């Protein structure tokens, strides 16, 4: 049944088991891509420590407070319910900057502005006060960039999570069952691939109110075709390997074979298409926000920042660059990571770098 020699299989197992990470991180592309991914995750998680209108640590009326640190835990939804900012920092009208006296001890975030905080500087240029300038409502662009990272990270990961579930289910079923099931699912995949995805997303979003959740769901529902095709091929290949036939001969059920035997062995190629898919999702989200179908206004995202900068391009051209560069770097690094993963899996396409 299998024509492969032991040697071949040995090297494949080795690649899959231990040297995948080494392969990815051994290439320059992999390191850049992975490094930027970690950086984005870090900015997302620790955003309030980088930009907030409340101090990281301060001494206020004889007591110690850690409002920005609490914000990190709270805004990720990680902290228990009682874990809240202590009074008076939890009151909306409390302005820490004016309340705290200059002689009281306080460590402020690098950018002492909240993402929605309006100052009197409207469309200001880059300065020591506003590193990347401020927008038409006087909000600090650097703070908004930092808090907009969350949208890009979440959109990429959640929409690809949805896409992986749909793609692996359909592709796996098609590859495992074969026959008419494969025929029907393959035609469905080809049909969805033919849709101009961006316009389909636009037309779907017309019916729903713009929100980050809707954007994620719609991207996930339309971007699963590549994953489905990869998993179909992998399932087709692996279902005829001896260890799967052995499981069948022992009476192991179909679901257990699909998810317990085939899926773990087919994940690596799927990972590659996920990585490219995240890059595409980030781009789609930016495009949707730019058109006004994405994240609604007070919540910042790189796409919506770009949109508001574009509207004031003549007055404040400097506002266009930060979101552009961020989107470019994010998409680039996801693509580099995908390429590094692909090369690590398939040594034949590896080039000297």
């Amino acid at each position, binding site marked *: *049944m*299998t024509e*492969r020699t*032991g040697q071949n*299989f*040995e090297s*494949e*197992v*080795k690649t*899959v*088991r231990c040297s995948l990470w080494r392969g990815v991180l051994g290439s320059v592309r992999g390191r850049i891509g992975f490094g930027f991914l970690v950086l984005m995750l870090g900015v997302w998680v620790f955003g309030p420590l980088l930009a907030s209108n409340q101090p990281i640590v301060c001494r206020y009326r004889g007591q110690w407070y850690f409002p920005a640190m609490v914000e990190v835990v709270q805004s990720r939804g990680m902290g228990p319910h009682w874990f809240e900012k202590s009074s008076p920092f939890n009151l909306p009208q409390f302005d820490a900057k004016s309340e705290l006296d200059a002689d009281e001890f306080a460590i402020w975030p690098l950018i002492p502005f909240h993402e929605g905080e309006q100052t009197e500087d409207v469309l200001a240029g880059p300065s020591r006060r506003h590193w990347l300038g401020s927008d038409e409502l006087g909000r600090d662009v650097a703070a908004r960039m930092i808090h907009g990272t969350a949208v890009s990270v979440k959109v990429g990961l959640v929409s690809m999570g949805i896409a992986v579930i749909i793609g692996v289910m359909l592709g796996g079923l098609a590859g495992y069952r074969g026959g008419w099931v494969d025929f029907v699912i393959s035609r469905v995949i080809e049909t969805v691939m033919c849709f101009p995805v961006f316009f389909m997303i636009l037309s779907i979003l017309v019916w729903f109110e713009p929100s980050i959740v809707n954007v994620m769901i719609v991207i996930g529902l339309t971007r699963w075709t590549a994953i489905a095709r990869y998993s179909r091929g992998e399932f087709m290949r692996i279902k005829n*390997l*001896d*260890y799967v*036939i*052995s*499981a*069948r*001969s*022992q*009476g*192991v*059920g179909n679901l*257990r074979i699909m998810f*317990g*035997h085939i899926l*773990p*062995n087919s994940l690596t190629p799927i990972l590659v298409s996920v990585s490219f898919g995240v890059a595409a999702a980030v781009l789609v989200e930016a495009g949707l926000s730019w058109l006004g179908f994405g994240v609604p206004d007070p919540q910042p995202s790189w796409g919506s920042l770009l949109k508001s900068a574009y509207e004031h391009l003549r007055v404040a051209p400097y506002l266009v660059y930060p979101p552009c560069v961020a989107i470019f770097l994010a998409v680039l690094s996801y693509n580099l990571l995908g390429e590094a993963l692909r090369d690590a899996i398939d040594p034949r396409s590896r080039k000297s770098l």
Partner: protein
Amino acid sequence: MCNNNLVKVENLKTWFPVRKGFFSRSVRWLKAVDGVSFGIGAGKTLGLVGESGCGKTTLGRTILRLIPATSGEVVFGGHEVFSQSGRQMRNLRRDMQLIFQDPFGSLNPRRTVESIVGEALTVHGIARGKKRAARVAELLEKVGVPASYAGRYPHEFSGGQRQRIGIARALALNPKFVVCDEPVSALDVSIQSQIINLLQDLQKEFGLTYLFIAHDLAVVEHISDYVAVMYLGRIVEHATAGDIYANAQHPYTQALLSAVPQPDSNRPGKRIRLEGEVPSPIDPPSGCPFHPRCSKAVEKCRNELPPLESKAGNPGHLAACWQAKC
């Protein structure tokens, strides 16, 4: 032969459609197994020999209902295998197991040995947790792998050890019948004898019935009670191991036997060379499928298919050849 057969195969056919053309019309059939009948008595071993591509593996897997049969029937311990419902078949599978040729591809590279050997125990609800670990350890010791290796992954083992793990997996459910699909062909000669001795010891201990597939008569001679020789999807000769080696009737069997290296110079051997290639099973030759390569072929061989019938005055010695004496 034996009347109390554990496994009985009756006129089994496994044909694969060869699709061709844009509309996938089924044009021709690849007859991998074409009308095979035999029985294996409980506790006995039937050696199945033939060149690569003659349908040995397909036959073994069809008997286990891993490949759908085109027609014919397999009776296992009184049950018609092909008419079992899903649940009945699952229970039946506990009694029939498979050992593979390729010790590298037959173990899931992402699973530990304990999970590989013990999965069937979990699936059939026999043992879990500590009980399963204990049973796996017992099985590993039985096949000669240290039980302390249960947490390791397949790539940490040598070919022979992996084959032992594959055997332990097959034994996990206490089967009655094991299809050994060329279990030693991929191993070094020194390891081959170890594995064969292991299989024989296990047969004695558990009263196993083997269908032992091989492409090498020397290997089969050692372990089999009966030997069936297969050529292009058909059995051409079927007899006890002793009869096959002492008194082969079919020219194909004689040619195979002459290819076995003889350390004993008292057994005079003249090498019979087989001319030509194995014909394609898609378009088998008319009449006796062996006639294009047979030195004894006459006109009748080209036109009429010889039936498998008793030869050499021995009712237990079956051969499909017009030229063999009755």
